[in-house]
């Protein structure tokens, strides 16, 4: 299934900037960055639970926020892209 992860991490303090870097790192390990704080992660339920736990460990819920959107297995007809930085299709042929 495809899960869209978005976050807002406060970067007022250096601790916040550190959280931001670490949140981005975890997201990158599970999916692709489609916009600045937006990741598309193709995961199974186990991997999703893992990702969710890692992110919740990282953020400070008094200052930051996290959102998960579930696009399911039929995500292709639910996503439309316009403009620059076209994303790759993680289920399509990956040829470079």
């Amino acid at each position: 299934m495809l899960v869209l992860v978005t976050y807002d991490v406060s970067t007022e303090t250096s601790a916040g900037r550190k959280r931001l870097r670490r949140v981005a790192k975890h997201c990158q390990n599970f999916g692709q960055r489609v916009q600045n704080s937006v990741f598309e992660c193709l995961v199974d339920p186990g991997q999703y639970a893992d990702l969710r736990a890692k992110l919740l460990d990282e953020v400070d819920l008094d200052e930051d926020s996290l959102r998960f959107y579930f696009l399911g297995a039929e995500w292709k007809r639910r996503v439309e892209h316009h403009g620059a930085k076209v994303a790759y299709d993680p289920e399509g042929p990956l040829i470079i």
Partner: protein
Amino acid sequence: MKKLLNTLFITRQGVYLAKEGETIQVKEADETLLRVPVHTLQGVVCFGRVNASASLMGFCGERGVLMSFFTEWGEFLCRVQGPVSGNVLLRRRQYRVADDVEGCQAVVRTIVCAKVANCRQVLMRAIREEYDDSESLSRQVVVLKSVLERAARPGQSVDVLRGLEGEAGKAYFGCFQSLIGEGREEFAFQGRSRRPPLDRVNAMLSFVYTLLVHDVTSALEGVGLDPACGFLHKDRPGRPSLALDLMEELRPVIADRLVLSLINRQQVRTRHFRESEGGAVLLNEEGRKEVLTAWQKRKQEEFLHPMLEERVAVGLLPHVQAMFLARYLRGDSEMYPALLWKG
């Protein structure tokens, strides 16, 4: 059930693959071309001048993602193997069966029978679709049937079975040309040639078989079998004999039909090939991309597995068959059920 994961193909020359967190980063000079999480992949296939970092290779080995390296023209160079995984007891069983004459015969017989039967189905399907040469095709179908009957007799030595397989291959490839509808001149085929392939059809067949070996090897490793210890193919250092064995039954169904449809649908044309001085005909970069794309799509198609009676993705067939083979070697089932395609 295992999930069908994606394969990353690198055909661009001079790129560098590195591990970055749990992702594979594809870099060209200082630019990142792609970043893919390793958990979405089952294999990485690199052609030509592609570099990879040691830590990435180690990571792929650990995660069971098979990394293979080929020359730019698709000739196998090496694969990266991590720590041996799976079950020692299963591997020991495998070696014992491979050393045992009767055990070997039983496996080889089913594989050879399935291969011949599947080749026959490919021809019969073409006859149903009314190709011009259905008469010569029908003749070869009869030949294959007689080979099949002889191969199915119990108690035959592996050498006899190898001979029958060769006979079937000759009959099958002898009329392979008739299966090509469009562009007969462009895609003239006079029997199988390898190392190097001498015509366009052979170039495509060799390339697709290479891809299949990669997938079958990784499937065997996935269930804990040793891909190097075969029954039909003799052991030779560096040769994935068991993968080649398992491939026999899958080849007509997965690989040959893909090549035929690429030609007959005119997805692959003359401009997708290049000829080298020695007479070798090889796919060029554009051609390889065309074939790889079709290959990946084909793997996502579903197939009604006759034993499981369930729909499985074509790309998972090597895994399903590897699992059956492991079950048989472990003694959990009476016989190894080779894949029979019903046309």
